[in-house]
């Protein structure tokens, strides 16, 4: 079987829950599409850093004739130039999650909105707390995603009387979140709510709060729509009644949309913004994928 | 010392020369341990000044004080009348005083030439001038009779060659005072002769030489004056011509001395305790077959580099080797390793006590019992009390001069390290003992103790193989001598055939059992008559 269309997919390596989900969905898409369209070859490549991602772009474009590239860039600034390089060979470019600094490079853009993840959570929380209270925040690994979420969140909070008591890195790691939350609890006798900017960390937070048997904490919120947390939402948990989706499956959608360019369906171009609506007990079912690792 | 004797005549009494260096009331203490107290010494240009004393008397310490390696706790140094203090050995070297250490101090990973020129590399422009350094190193090595090549990696050289490299290093520049701390302990006779010539050459050039050795014959032929140390104190300084070897020895130990070598034993014909057939050691020995019987001391002679150490290390499974058969105590050993040999009753004492013998950073007790852990501690748990008892016994039995039982092994004097090593080996209660250079660095008083010890062991029905580069020792001790050359056993001497001439002849050119020129047979001189 000759495959005459090559689509490269470049994504971050599975280093924590969310990127793990991305890899999972990308591999799913690869299997499904290669089975359905024998003329399409999907080449999947993961990278553990921006540098490695640039390297793999170079490798892919130097050794194959790429018809399309689907990329979830580590950072915008660092990947813009290299992706531009790939495009100059006539490759169709689909960018997922984070836009490039030069938006003219991307033919198709499936955007996540990290600022909205932070902002929507903050709005909901401000409502529930009546615009006042004391909260603590856990942030992830110092990267653009993390920065944007925190930015979205703190801009909204800044307009209320809610005080952010503390904000520290927990590297999107359950253990570190657990440890950090224990320390927050030791340090502050009263905490009204916790926000961990990712559900992975939220699990650690919840464990620490349970252990301390503290009932001052009214809300423990995360983001990203991790399977375990959506289960909590579905069970109408009082402390974690919502989450925000940031589905790693966006990579799969993007791959399908890109394939659409080549298999005779209506070609799609432009930007598709994934919103970050609140996941509530009412709509949780829609966001629940029991088979996904995330 | 064979070649020394006829040179002794050339030595003549000289007029007292100018004093270069003077030590006034030098003392050194480590914490509460005083190792040297109130030593006063004058060192003169164009003179060879020997320092003698028992193991642990403080000779090395005194030399380290004079050469800036160690700072005194009391006392003064005067150089050409000017008081001075060295911050470190480099300052002392700049002032013209250099020490050739008892322990070999070289960078193993560097080449011979790189070591010799370390710290004073020759340069051409920005670059080091390797060609010039290699050339000069080659000249220097040839002059002192070393066959090492400038480009050899020092770590790959045998001990003797490393010692010569160390000496070459010291002789590179013009010095006022050159100190040799037991330079000949690891050298063979011809190398010793070459070195002594070099030292005499230094004297001719007006250099002041300080010389430490336990080989009193060397002292007698070489030195102009002799200073005796005992227990860290100065006993006195005498013109060498006024002392004979026996007097020197008695000044050192402070009592009358027994004669050196025990009487030889009657030949036995019992089954061998160890018999080796066709042992082949990779890059070492070829087709070696030998046996040693109970009640016998087997000597292993040969020039340095003839492969004696390799042969034995191969036998012990420490190097890759093959053998048709190795039988110890009637047991055929199929898998040779130090542990299995030890179990069968065979142990080996290395010539390289610093690199392969002792854990210099560890205390005495762990060192002593390392090989005999099972014997000292029958249970899994360590029996500290038994270990301490063993240490006390070893210290007494082997006369290890140590002022604290909790010292690290590296802080013992060289000779006492050797005694500790011997004690460690005997902890396993072996029936065959192979000793590579048994008395390296051991003082004359203790030498006879070690010989007696070997004798007693053998008389009790055990067997001993002695590798020695000291001809006299070999001749005085062994009932039978195997001579090796270029990895092969080329001669077997027994009974009356054993003399220095025969050994040397076989080691250099001889055929089996042939009798060479009987050069200097002193074997009877120090033998006990009873």
């Amino acid at each position, binding site marked *: 079987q000759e495959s005459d269309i090559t689509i490269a997919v470049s994504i971050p390596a599975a280093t924590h*829950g969310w990127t793990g989900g991305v890899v999972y969905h990308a591999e799913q898409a690869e299997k499904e599409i290669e089975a359905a369209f024998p003329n399409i070859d999907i080449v999947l490549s993961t990278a553990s850093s921006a540098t490695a991602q640039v390297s793999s772009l170079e490798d892919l474009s130097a050794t194959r004739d790429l018809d399309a590239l689907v990329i979830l860039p580590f950072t915008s600034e660092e990947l813009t130039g290299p992706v531009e390089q790939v495009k100059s060979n006539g490759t169709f470019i689909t960018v997922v999650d984070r836009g490039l600094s030069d938006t003219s490079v991307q033919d198709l853009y499936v955007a996540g909105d990290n600022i909205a993840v932070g902002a929507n959570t903050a709005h909901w929380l401000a409502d529930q707390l009546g615009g006042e209270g004391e909260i603590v925040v856990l942030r992830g690994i110092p990267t653009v995603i993390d920065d944007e979420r925190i930015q979205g969140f703190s801009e909204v909070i800044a307009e209320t009387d809610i005080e952010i008591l503390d904000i520290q890195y927990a590297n999107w790691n*359950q253990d570190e979140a657990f440890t950090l939350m224990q320390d927050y609890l030791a340090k502050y006798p009263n905490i009204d709510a916790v926000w961990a900017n990712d559900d992975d960390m939220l699990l650690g937070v919840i464990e620490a709060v349970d252990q301390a048997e503290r009932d001052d904490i009214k809300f423990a919120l995360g983001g990203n729509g991790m399977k375990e947390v959506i289960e909590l939402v579905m069970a109408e948990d009082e402390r974690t009644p919502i989450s925000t989706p940031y589905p790693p499956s966006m990579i799969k959608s993007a791959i399908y949309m890109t394939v659409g360019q080549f298999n005779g369906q209506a070609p799609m171009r432009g930007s598709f913004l994934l919103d970050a609506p609140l996941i509530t007990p009412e709509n949780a079912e829609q966001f629940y994928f029991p088979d996904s*690792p995330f | 010392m064979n070649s020394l004797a006829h040179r002794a005549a050339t030595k003549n009494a000289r007029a007292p020369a100018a004093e270069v260096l003077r030590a006034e009331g030098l003392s050194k203490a480590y914490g509460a341990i005083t190792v040297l107290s109130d030593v006063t010494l004058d060192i003169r240009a164009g003179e060879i000044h020997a320092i003698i004393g028992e193991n642990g008397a403080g000779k090395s310490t005194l030399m380290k004080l004079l050469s800036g390696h160690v700072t005194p706790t009391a006392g003064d140094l005067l150089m050409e009348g000017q008081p001075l203090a060295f911050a470190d050995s480099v300052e002392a070297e700049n002032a013209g005083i250099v020490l050739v250490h008892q322990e070999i101090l070289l960078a193993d990973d560097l080449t011979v030439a790189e070591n010799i020129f370390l710290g004073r590399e020759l340069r051409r422009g920005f670059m080091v001038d390797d060609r010039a350094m290699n050339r000069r190193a080659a000249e220097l090595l040839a002059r002192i009779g070393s066959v090492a090549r400038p480009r050899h990696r020092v770590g790959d050289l045998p001990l003797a060659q490393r010692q010569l490299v160390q000496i070459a290093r010291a002789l590179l520049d013009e010095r006022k005072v050159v100190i040799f701390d037991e330079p000949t302990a690891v050298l063979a006779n011809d190398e010793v002769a070459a070195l002594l010539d070099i030292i005499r050459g230094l004297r001719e050039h007006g250099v002041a030489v300080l010389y430490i050795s336990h080989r009193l014959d060397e002292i007698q032929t070489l030195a102009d004056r002799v200073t005796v140390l005992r227990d860290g104190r100065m006993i006195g300084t005498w013109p060498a011509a006024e002392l004979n070897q026996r007097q020197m020895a008695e000044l050192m130990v402070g009592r009358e001395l027994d004669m050196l070598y025990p009487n030889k034993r009657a030949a036995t014909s019992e089954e061998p305790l160890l018999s080796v057939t066709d042992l082949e050691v990779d890059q070492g020995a070829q087709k070696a077959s030998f046996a040693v019987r109970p009640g016998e001391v087997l000597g292993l002679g040969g020039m340095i580099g003839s492969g004696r150490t390799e042969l034995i290390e191969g036998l012990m499974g420490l190097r890759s080797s093959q053998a048709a058969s190795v039988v110890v105590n009637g047991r055929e050993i199929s898998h040779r*390793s130090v542990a299995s040999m030890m179990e069968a009753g065979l142990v080996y004492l290395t010539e390289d006590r610093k690199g*392969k013998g002792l854990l210099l950073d560890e205390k005495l007790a*762990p060192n002593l019992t*390392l090989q005999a852990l099972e014997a000292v501690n029958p249970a899994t748990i360590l029996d500290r009390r038994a270990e301490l008892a063993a240490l006390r016994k070893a210290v007494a039995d082997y006369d290890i001069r140590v002022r604290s039982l*909790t010292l690290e092994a590296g802080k013992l004097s060289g000779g006492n390290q050797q005694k500790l090593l011997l004690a460690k080996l005997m902890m396993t209660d072996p029936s065959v003992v192979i000793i590579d250079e048994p008395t390296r660095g051991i003082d004359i008083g203790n030498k006879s103790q070690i010989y007696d010890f070997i004798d007693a062991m053998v008389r009790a029905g055990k067997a001993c193989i002695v590798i020695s580069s000291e001809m006299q020792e070999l001749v005085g001790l062994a009932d039978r001598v195997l001579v090796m050359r270029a990895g092969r056993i080329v001669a077997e001497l027994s009974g009356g055939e054993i003399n220095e001439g025969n050994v040397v002849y076989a080691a250099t050119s001889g055929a089996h059992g042939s009798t060479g020129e009987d050069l200097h047979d002193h074997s009877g001189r120090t033998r006990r008559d009873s």
Partner: protein
Amino acid sequence: MTTAAAPVATAEEKRRIRWADLAPFIALGVIVFIGILINSNFASSANLINVITRSAFITIIAVGATFVISSGGLDLSVGSMMAFVTGIMIMTMNGLAPSYGSWAIVMGAGVALVVGGLCGLFNGLIITVGRIEPFIVTLGTMGIFRAFITFMSDGGSLPIDRSLREAYRPVYFGDFLGIPYPVLITLAVVLLGAFLLYRTKYGRRLTSVGSNAEVARFSGVNVSRVRTLAYVIQGLCVGVAAICYVPRLGAATPTTGQLWELQVITAVVIGGTLLRGGRGRIWGSVAGALILEVIANVMVLSDMVSEYLVAAVQGAIIIIAMLAHRFTSSR
């Protein structure tokens, strides 16, 4: 003369060494004292128990690392190995839970020990039989174990079966007479480790190998076996750590145990074990692990540094602590 001078010298020698050995404990004391000054909550029993309990993992692994490092080796794979062992253990427990109920936990724990020991054996054999730098080998196996856990969890998380959760939870959160179980387990591991290192023939041989492998070989010590065993002990410690770890968060993820290897080595070295081998200090390693955990805790409790700079301050404190030790103990 030998006997006359000996007693004085012995006593002196002993005192000096004791003082240097105490350094990590003094450092720990000073940091705890600073913690108390900075934030009154620090000394609350809840906080202290938290800190001590969660230092259990690093401490247990550090005990094993003390063996490896004093034998002259190094193990960079412990963090990944821990994640891998955790993953295997959870999969085993989940698989056995339907048929064996709570017994699946015990069987899973057994599997964790076996797998940990085997991982250590693998490291040890490649290092000793293959005669390759431990740094390279364990860097390689670090990648391998990490990849395995990522593969096993599909890049996501590998949670323990709900039915086992409640039964298993107390192993981390429970206590006996007020002392949390992980602390008790740690204490047992430390005592066992100290016994093995200081009181047995094996410990003696291990130290001799680290001090000078050539001397050990010439003394009939089976150097390869002693070294390999050190890695096996390290693996078993990782297994024990995994057993304490799972009940805490109930899952293994690809980030489990990340960078623990560096923390472990730091704890061991702060504790006074020589990185070049030949001297092991089990209790020092315990103090080292506590120092790291307390510093992290104090950093969060104090309000003084920007979140961006926490890592800088931690790094600086460790360096300063070592410097202070150096300059006080060298007088």
